[in-house]
């Protein structure tokens, strides 16, 4: 009994001191669609995802999920009410807990004990993790940890899922499995916003893409359209800018220090 959500960014801008990490970015994702956010390093993709998931407040602009303006919602409300969940560029599992406990924490946020257990068992089964349920989560291989993180997303029964480079560190076989999982998600009506480097994955799963460079939208369209767009080629290949990792250095990838209030 879920109402699939739409996800929308309206004129989102994020400044850190003098630096504008995200500048007037707008896009909208229809319900049950997989939307890719691509762009070179330091383009502001992760910052944008942090804003969409409520870990960061934008300087300007708003985020609309399933029709609600959620810009000022705390992240726990986003999960409980807007059914929006995310993964991280580097996997972030709870290190003192087993795989099962990692999923259970997330499931219990949105469901009662019995229902949560059913969902956790279901997700473990679907991602072939049942045999590893009792293992300490961070003892698993990187690829498996990625899968656990994906399972942790599924148990929340999400309407909107934000994935930050889920294919990073995966081998081609694992990438194909990931694409299958994403297709399955979409088929069950989940909206997916996918930040990704691997264009093969983007081509395989995304209906539409938004391309960022230096925090601005430089192109949008289907994966085929944007890869043919000269502006995009320029952004990826052009060496005339200082495309150092300066921007990355200033943007807090890690939000550890942010106030939780």
């Amino acid at each position, binding site marked *: 009994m879920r109402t699939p959500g739409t996800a929308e960014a309206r004129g989102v801008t994020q400044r850190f001191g003098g630096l504008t990490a995200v500048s007037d970015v707008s896009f909208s994702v229809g319900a049950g669609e997989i939307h890719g956010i691509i762009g070179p390093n330091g383009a502001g993709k992760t910052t944008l995802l942090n804003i969409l998931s409520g870990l960061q407040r934008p300087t300007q602009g708003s985020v609309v999920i399933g029709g609600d303006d959620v810009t000022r919602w705390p992240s*726990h409300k986003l999960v409980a009410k807007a059914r929006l969940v995310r993964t991280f560029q580097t996997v972030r599992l709870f290190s003192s807990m087993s795989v099962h406990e990692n999923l259970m924490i997330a499931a*219990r946020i949105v469901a009662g004990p019995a229902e949560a257990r059913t969902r956790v068992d279901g997700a473990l089964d679907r991602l072939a993790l049942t045999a590893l349920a009792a293992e300490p989560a961070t003892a698993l291989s990187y690829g498996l940890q990625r899968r656990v993180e994906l399972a942790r997303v599924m148990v929340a029964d999400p309407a909107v899922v934000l994935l930050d480079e889920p294919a990073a560190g995966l081998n081609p076989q694992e990438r194909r499995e990931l694409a299958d999982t994403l297709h399955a998600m979409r088929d069950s009506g989940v909206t997916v916003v996918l930040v990704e480097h691997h264009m093969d994955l983007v081509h395989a799963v995304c209906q539409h893409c938004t391309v960022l460079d230096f925090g601005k939208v430089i192109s949008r369209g289907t994966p085929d359209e944007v890869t043919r767009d000269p502006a995009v080629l320029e952004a990826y290949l052009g060496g005339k800018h200082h495309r150092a990792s300066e921007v990355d250095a200033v943007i807090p990838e890690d939000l550890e220090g942010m106030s939780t209030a």
Partner: protein
Amino acid sequence: MPDKAFAVRAGRHLAPTLIAAVILIGFVFTDPGPSGLALGVNIAVAAIASVGLTLAIGGAGQFSLGQAGFMAIGGYGTAYLMLAHEVQFLWALLAAVLLALVIGALVGYIALRLHGNYLAMATLAVSSGIYALLVLPGELGGANGYAPIPFPEIFGHKFIDPVDQYLLVAVTLILVLLVSNWLLASRGGKELAAIRDDEVAARAVGVNITARKVQIFALSAVIGAVAGGVNGPLQTAIDPSLYSPAVSIQMFVMVILGGLGNIYGAVLGAALVTWLIAAVPGNGSWALTILGMVVIAFMALLPDGLSGLPKLARSLLGRLRGRTTEGSITGGSK
């Protein structure tokens, strides 16, 4: 220090609480005499307060040096209502504990925004401020103390006999251990563990971090107030020195010796510190000087506290067998 050092090890099994209960109740049958029972009361009271403090330090990583302040609210609150307004013991205790809940939640909100050293200093200041207020001459007796507080009475039974008095405190401690255990194993306890592991990830899966941290801090204050509120009437007279900042520091030491987050360790730490202060001659000066040195030695060699001893033993055994041990004794790196 690694997060694990502060992890509350929630026992799914209640065996340790059962053992603690057997020891606590069994103590009565060892014919301890009035002075032994008085020491027992002091140990159990300190243990209750330090279990509470452990929940804040181990549960949410909130380094509080202010537990004596909450004990003061419990002690003076209960005593004042019983003496000045002739309120029944349990109701007086409840009211005082509710006050501690409110103030604890308030400090808990402050604690959200301060970390480590700063929070420790701020809570020490709160505890010192409460102490400085109690020393003021006034209705609560100032530095001379507050008396005579009636003995507690529950359902018509008056706790005058030293054995009864000890049992009252011991049973309170057992209840506090049970509640703490249950809580740490509950959903809220698991979410606190998730916050300790990775706060950003916990936010992302929807854990309400503000609520959880304020809740555990307020609960820690409540348990401190219970310790003070049960003890006050048993002493018939209380004075500010029972709740001085020095007592807050002693509480912190009990938790550190017990292992920063292990509730049974906190009980052991409380017993050790209280017993040493009573047993070593010199009005506590020798005992506390030595304990200070022990704290420094622990922090250098065994930051997991007494609960790190098994790990230390294992590592030493491993070394004896000539195997290379995995990791350092402390498991900690900078």
